[in-house]
């Protein structure tokens, strides 16, 4: 079985939701749409307080290349534009829309959502046109990093892309949204992959999936067979962080993404399965990215579920649709338990990068007591990047940022394998992020 070296085998805890069909949540009465939901520049608001907006209408954009526009996820009226809490832990300018069920001038109910617009047959689109459509739809990488997809689909001059990897690993514990997506929208995953391959002029598609999802693998295989393109479904060992880009490229193709480089340096574009579906829906119907698949799960959730939620729905509302919190809920996390962000309040919106709302209770949470590093080297033997994490944490702690860089600190992908295995419970990734932040400030 193909895989990468080192990494960890956490408890996956996916059984509770893996067999539950995704249900679409009803549109909320109010959405909070942050103008920054991606890697890159923040959007400028295109609307002002009091404006009526239609579902799917672009409400934020920028001329900067590395960015992605944002769209209204419900029809209604803009009631506030302000700095509001973002699930990444900061405050970001956001547009609040409250639904207006009745059109005030005519007294008629507004149409729910734009009529599906046909943008032409996908086969006729040129790579440049695909990038245009993808950009206008505000599509970003839905695996978690939220890198603007149109940028990824525009490899720089001289970089020949031969392979597109569609990432269906979903290696984070608890999350099953991509698993369900692959089962429920198999055709779309494959068709989206074909469009992505067309945009980057790659002649091979590899769909990578961990071996804990055999049903999705079989279904993808049977769909892939129907197409004349070179599409293979590759099964990888269930191991964390198998879905990390560099691990994935190594495991699936045996190629090493250079240090500090990108997959495109070795002729590869990696895209998440959710992104592929968003791309095909944008290309076929002009649908902007205003909904996403996510898993709402964990022992702190009464009815763990896979849902489709509109971007901007508050965590509170999403959780309420899943039976609410249990009495012993103690920690709310956006994303998975390995790389997610813990939340102060439930009044934060689902954003494009929200793959999961995970609620833990005291029982699963690690005790907080830390010990001095005993140099056990477990972090070294599990780091999938082959760094020496304990040294990096110590350099960061001591403010030795030069040595931090010299020991490859910038190569860290922040997967958390080191902190997971650390018997001293040292928040190693936290120290690494701090050092990277300080180094950015210095430059």
């Amino acid at each position, binding site marked *: 079985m193909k895989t990468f070296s080192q990494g960890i085998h*956490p*408890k996956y805890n996916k059984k509770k939701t893996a067999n539950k069909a995704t249900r679409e949540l009803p549109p909320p009465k109010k959405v909070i749409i942050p103008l920054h939901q991606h890697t890159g520049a923040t959007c400028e608001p295109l609307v002002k307080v009091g404006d009526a907006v239609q579902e799917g209408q672009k409400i934020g954009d920028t001329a900067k290349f590395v960015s992605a526009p944002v769209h209204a996820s419900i029809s209604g009226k803009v009631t506030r534009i302000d700095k509001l809490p973002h699930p990444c832990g900061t405050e970001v300018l956001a547009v609040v829309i409250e639904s207006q069920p009745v059109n005030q001038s005519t007294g008629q109910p507004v149409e729910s959502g734009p009529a599906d617009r046909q943008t032409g047959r996908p086969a006729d689109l040129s790579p440049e046109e695909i990038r245009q459509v993808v950009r206008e739809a505000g599509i970003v990488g839905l695996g978690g990093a939220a890198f603007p997809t149109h940028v990824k689909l525009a490899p720089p001059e001289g970089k020949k892309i031969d392979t597109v990897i569609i990432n269906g690993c979903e290696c984070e*514990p608890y999350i099953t949204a991509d698993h369900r997506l692959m089962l429920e929208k198999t055709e779309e995953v494959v068709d989206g992959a074909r469009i992505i391959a067309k945009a980057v002029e790659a002649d091979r598609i590899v769909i990578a999936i961990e071996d804990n999802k055999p049903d999705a693998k079989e279904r993808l295989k049977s769909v892939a067979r129907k197409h004349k393109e070179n599409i293979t479904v590759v099964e990888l060992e269930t191991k964390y962080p198998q879905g990390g880009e*560099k691990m994935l490229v*190594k495991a699936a193709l045996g190629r*090493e*993404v*250079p*240090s500090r*480089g990108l997959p495109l340096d070795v002729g590869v574009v990696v895209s998440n399965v959710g992104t592929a579906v968003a791309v095909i829906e944008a290309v076929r119907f002009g649908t902007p990215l205003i909904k996403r698949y996510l898993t709402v799960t964990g022992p702190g959730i009464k009815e763990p579920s896979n849902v489709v939620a509109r971007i901007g729905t508050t965590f509170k509302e999403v959780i309420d649709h899943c039976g609410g919190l249990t009495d012993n809920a*103690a*920690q*709310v*996390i956006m994303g998975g*338990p*390995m*790389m*997610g*962000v*813990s*939340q*102060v*309040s439930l009044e934060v919106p689902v954003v494009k990068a929200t793959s999961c709302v*995970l609620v*833990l209770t005291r029982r*699963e*949470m*690690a*005790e*907080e007591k830390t*010990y*001095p*590093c*005993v*140099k*056990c*080297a*477990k972090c*070294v*033997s599990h780091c*999938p*990047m*082959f*760094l*020496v994490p304990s*040294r990096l944490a110590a350099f960061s702690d001591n403010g030795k940022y030069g040595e931090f860089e010299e*020991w*490859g600190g910038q*190569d860290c992908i922040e997967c*958390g394998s080191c*902190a*997971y*295995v*650390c*018997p*001293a*419970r040292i*928040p190693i*990734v*936290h120290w690494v992020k701090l050092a990277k932040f300080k180094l950015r400030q210095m430059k």
Partner: protein
Amino acid sequence: MSYRISPAPYIKPPDTVPRMMFLVIGALLPATFAGAYFFGLRALGLVLICVGTAIGTEYLVNRMMKRDQTIADGSAAVTGLLLALCLSPSMPFFAAFLGTVFAIAVGKQLFGGLGYNTFNPALIGRAFLAAAFPVHMTSWVAPFAYRGLAAVTAATPLAAMKFQHELTPYGRLFFGNVSGCIGETSALLIILPALLLAGIGLINWRIPAGYLGTVALLGGVFWLANPAQYPDPLFQLLAGGLMLGACFMATDLVTSPLTPRGMWVFGVGAGVLVIVIRLFSGLPEGVMYSILIMNALVPLINKYTRPRILGQKK
């Protein structure tokens, strides 16, 4: 309602530093009880004195230095136990007490406590005793002497080899029915628990593999060159403190390298030193100094054996 805020990851396996320490103590118990069996309750008394003194010293130093109390993490007890296991069963109690105080206060706490010491604290204590009580450190009792069954004193297998060219039968070396330090005599009762610890990843197999492999290989070279002068490799492996040292002293987490290649360098280096000391110095045994010398080189070894980062040019 307020939710807990903490950095990722949010789930962790149950391993903690104290759990590792108590597993090491558990793994050393077979050798400890073998010591009591071969050398009598006095050996057990020495063990209790060393462990108690180690915990007491750690407690007092922490109080004096106004540090958080650390006796519950088990690391002081490990040091006390390891020191006791590499003492002669006839060691005076007060000497064992002094050696343990030195091991904890100087070998560990002076460097900053758990995780910060350069040298294996138990071996620092032992080196102190070797300098302060050289006669007591080299007086040995025969196994079962406490039952009045055998002569009271007896040379260790290594000393018998070095000074009288007398070979001890392998069976006795393997099961521990020879004179020597309290916990070093039974190769069997050291190897088995060490294999279990290596199985759960608590001690890294590379260090004992490099260490024992080098002793066997290099010892074998000398033996082949001159079998009349030098003992065979199996004897080198089973006699003296090598097993205990390779499995439980050289693998001390804090004082051994972090990197896989570094662990090989460390093990091989210690193995070369053991052979050099055993065959060419005035001492019959070289395990303690081999490990202490390699301890000093650990920062350098770490620096020059960093793994190749994924994607870095080969």
